[in-house]
């Protein structure tokens, strides 16, 4: 590999070592570990806002006619006069909640943190291929987050046409007030976000391909790296398509083109648009939008695979099958977008094709789930908080994934499309699951990030309350979806037909509020542990991967001396040839030791 070549880079960096100022170390840092922390803190901050928004609209759904002082305080007199939430701000909250959680927390917060932290450390590299581009990537993300948040404060309110921003609703301020300045800021923010994401992804791909240390062949990579690598490829393939959709939408909105608009009569006048089609936008949007859910879930899968193996003191079962299923999911993810559009008005024949490809994804997903379960079998499970969240992720991924068989089947989708059934499905399978993956990652790699340990008892409380509340929120939601209740309704009081669902809505909200409140435990644990947590030893979880061979204190270039050399795969746990139950990757093979089948 290029280990020697990279050592020069390290020498070069050493010359500048003394010149580090506060700004170059903490703000405009090019060090991957600092950038990972920046992503994580920003992601957590955005997550707090996103979750808070969901609690607000859950309260509105449970008690639609009530007046809450908190609404008035947070939303202001315009959007919550006398504490009663207005209908347009409800849609805005739903929209921004979706955008923030999908893009800013589970894409940038999750991938950005762990790809940056782990790729160089686990492949044995001094840093990312381009530290400077990495820094730019973070700061573009930061700017896009600031713009997204600033859109909350514009006069007519933020974007409110759903996170899928389907035109014409998102294109015409006459149709909904949020499609004015709010939507402009949304589009600018997302365009910058995509630029950031692309720079990050390119960096990850190049780093994984070029900077692996000696002996680190592709089939010795930890599964985390495999999933980050594949995720980055999906991002590079699909994010530009969303960018093009956003640009065309900007043209339609500002320069009078008709890519997505045609034959519109609104607010008493005929608009000039002619010949475009909103269905085209849906195709472009979901060409990113669907791979996006795999961009979110694949890193979580990688983290869970790694944590399960380490904490079960057992090799991950079916290492190669895991890689193949990751690749299969990545490939299939780019040809299933149409299952979001079964009833969009596209040719029903296309619906048949997309049903076929969509249900195929269940096969690699099933392989993963069974491999995880088998990894636990006859293990010696160490229940650290990260392990609990990993098991929780497998549970929610299965529960949520199974209902995908209903939604992916065009015939069944007809009647549950855009109901709460969909909301329940995707929150379990990619929302909660990816969030669990992120929590597992934070608990597991916190010692690597901050050199200290998080409190395990708080972690246990955090997990169990979150686990009960997640099911408490999303399991009943399936039923109200099957009762035909459409999503994105500000209140259901205009439909006596749905009156008997109100108690369920109250229960869901109660679970959401309790679950939301207990996230404070995590926040407290996280921030308190940064400063007061117990100091970590070098390899607290007795893990095999290379990041635990680097010193606890972060240094430029990661390893003080030469880069570690890799002799074995990362899952030699409880290897019968060895007395200890873990054999790090940089331990040479014993004389006569054979490579065990994997």
């Amino acid at each position, binding site marked *: 590999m290029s280990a020697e070549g990279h050592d020069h880079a390290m020498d070069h960096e050493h010359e500048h070592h003394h010149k580090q100022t506060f700004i170059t170390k903490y703000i405009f840092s090019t060090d991957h570990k600092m950038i990972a922390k920046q992503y994580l803190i920003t992601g957590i901050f955005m997550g707090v806002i996103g979750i808070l928004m969901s609690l607000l609209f859950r309260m509105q759904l449970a008690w639609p006619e009530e007046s809450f002082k908190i609404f008035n305080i947070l939303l202001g007199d315009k959007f919550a006069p006398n504490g009663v939430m207005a*209908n*347009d701000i409800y*849609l805005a909250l739903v929209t921004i909640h979706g955008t923030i959680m999908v893009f800013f927390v589970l894409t940038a917060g999750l991938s950005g943190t762990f790809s940056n932290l782990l790729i160089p450390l686990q492949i044995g590299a001094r840093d990312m291929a381009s530290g400077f581009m990495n820094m730019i990537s973070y700061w573009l993300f930061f700017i896009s987050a600031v713009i997204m948040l600033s859109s909350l404060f514009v006069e007519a309110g933020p974007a409110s046409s759903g996170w899928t921003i389907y035109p*014409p609703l998102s294109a*015409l301020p006459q*149709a909904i*007030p949020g499609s004015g300045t709010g939507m402009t800021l949304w589009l600018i923010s997302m365009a910058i976000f995509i630029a950031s994401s692309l720079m990050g992804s390119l960096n990850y791909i190049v780093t994984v391909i070029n900077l692996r240390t000696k002996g680190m062949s592709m089939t010795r990579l930890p599964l985390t790296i495999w999933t980050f690598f594949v995720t980055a490829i999906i991002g590079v393939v699909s994010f530009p398509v969303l960018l093009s959709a956003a640009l065309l939408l900007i043209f339609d909105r500002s320069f009078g083109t008709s890519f997505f608009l*045609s*034959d*519109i009569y*609104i607010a008493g006048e005929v608009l000039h648009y002619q010949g*475009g089609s909103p269905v085209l936008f849906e195709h472009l949007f979901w060409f990113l939008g669907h791979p996006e859910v795999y961009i979110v879930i694949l890193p979580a899968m990688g983290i869970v695979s790694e944590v399960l193996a380490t904490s079960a003191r*057992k090799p991950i*079962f079916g*290492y190669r*099958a895991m890689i193949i299923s990751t690749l299969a999911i990545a490939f299939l993810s780019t040809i299933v977008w149409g299952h979001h559009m079964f*009833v*969009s*008005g596209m040719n*029903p024949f296309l619906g048949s094709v997309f049903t076929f490809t969509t249900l195929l994804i269940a096969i690699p997903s099933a*392989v993963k*789930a069974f491999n995880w379960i*088998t990894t636990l*079998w006859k293990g*010696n*499970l*160490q*229940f*650290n908080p990260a392990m609990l969240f990993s098991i929780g992720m497998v*549970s929610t991924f299965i*529960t949520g994934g199974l209902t995908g*068989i*209903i939604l992916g*089947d*065009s*015939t*069944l989708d007809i009647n549950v499309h855009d*109901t709460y059934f969909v909301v329940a499905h995707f929150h379990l399978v990619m929302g909660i699951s990816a969030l669990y993956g992120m929590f597992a990652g934070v608990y597991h790699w916190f010692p690597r990030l901050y050199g200290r340990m998080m*409190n395990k008892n*708080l972690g*246990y409380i955090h997990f169990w309350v979150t686990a009960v509340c997640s*099911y408490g929120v999303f*399991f009943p939601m399936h039923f*109200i979806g099957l009762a*035909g209740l*459409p999503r*994105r309704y500000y209140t259901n009081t205009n439909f006596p037909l749905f*009156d008997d669902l109100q108690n369920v809505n109250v229960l869901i909200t*109660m679970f959401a*509020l*309790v679950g939301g409140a*207990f996230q404070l*435990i995590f926040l*407290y*644990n996280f921030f308190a542990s940064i400063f007061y947590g*117990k100091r970590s030893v070098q390899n*607290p979880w007795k893990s095999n991967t290379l990041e635990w061979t680097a010193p606890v204190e972060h240094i430029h270039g990661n390893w003080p001396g030469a880069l570690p050399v890799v002799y074995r795969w990362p899952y030699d746990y*409880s290897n019968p040839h060895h007395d200890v139950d873990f054999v790090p990757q940089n331990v040479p093979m014993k004389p006569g030791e054979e490579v*065990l*089948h994997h």
Partner: protein
Amino acid sequence: MTSLLVIIVLVLLAVALWQLTKIFDLTQVGSNPDRSEVATDEDNNVQGYLMFGFLAFLYIFTIYGLFKWGPLVLHTPASEHGFEVDRLMNITWLLIFIVQAITQVLLHYFAFKYRGKKDRKALYFADNNKLEAIWSGIPAVVLAGLILYGLYAWTNIMFVDEDEDTIIIEVYAQQFNWKIRYAGEDNVLGKANVRLIEGVNSLGVDMADPYSQDDIVVTTELHIPKGKKVQFKMRSQDVLHSAYFPHFRAQMNVVPGMITQFAFTPVLTTDEYRELPYMIEKVAHINDLRTKKSVGLVAKGEAALDPYTFDFLLLCNKICGASHYNMQMKVIVDTPEDYKKWLSEQALLVNQVKEANAPPTAVDGEIKSDSTKAIDTATVAKVAMK
């Protein structure tokens, strides 16, 4: 009740905050300096049992949910293809419950059974091609069956035979209401475009088109006859909407700039559907809830809620603006005779347009022409139904 719930939440919040500070303090103060924050055997034991407890929670919660909320879901379909959809749905549910039951048991039971102990060493079991083949093969076979069944049903539902005898009805969407246009005697809708919207002609129908002459526009409710396939042609004048008929297992987006379609055959009239035992029970339950709620409303000096009678609904199911949550229309399935009669009582669009455009001075003439046209309308509609 509501305020009580809010108070409970606030109390829980307070408890959460108090607990977390307390726990953290305790662990900080009383801990020995060797505390490693890595799970000990005791932790493994406790968490292992909790895993088992969580499995019990999942099962109890699922069974409770099925009994408590199962009756809330949509029941008997009111359309012909709805039975096919529900059959496929039930088969899929059966599979889902089997897989869910098995995998969750394995996952949580293994977590409990193999909770860590100091002296144990895990089994080095890295790979087994036979197992991988089994759990990629079985899902593949099962899914192949589901895909085939699904595609068969989908094709039957979505592709309407060209020469099949259907009733053509236009569903027209705008922020935030639905309008309906019947094709009249010729069963062909006249051409229309939003550029022709003017006054009474709120759907932009081209009045010069001969096919438009017998079109009828209704803005209050959608009537359809039982036992005959109805083909809906959908148009939107502003943003995306979605025409969702939950009881008929029917949904299609309504897209500005194009015509989308969906067809189904109603098999139960509104009256028949109201008499279904499940519906009688559901309506009684809803009215119970409404009566209880009314007591509170009356106490506050507000009007009591009206008692509820069931009606089929056409809902908007694609976010379409601020009042999206209230874009609905009553759907009434009549017997063919009642449908014929109802349709014959509706005014032709062409007459409404003429009436609106007539100079206000020619009062006499208008009355005369109106009465003759009213007869025309009636006969036209009768012919249409034949």
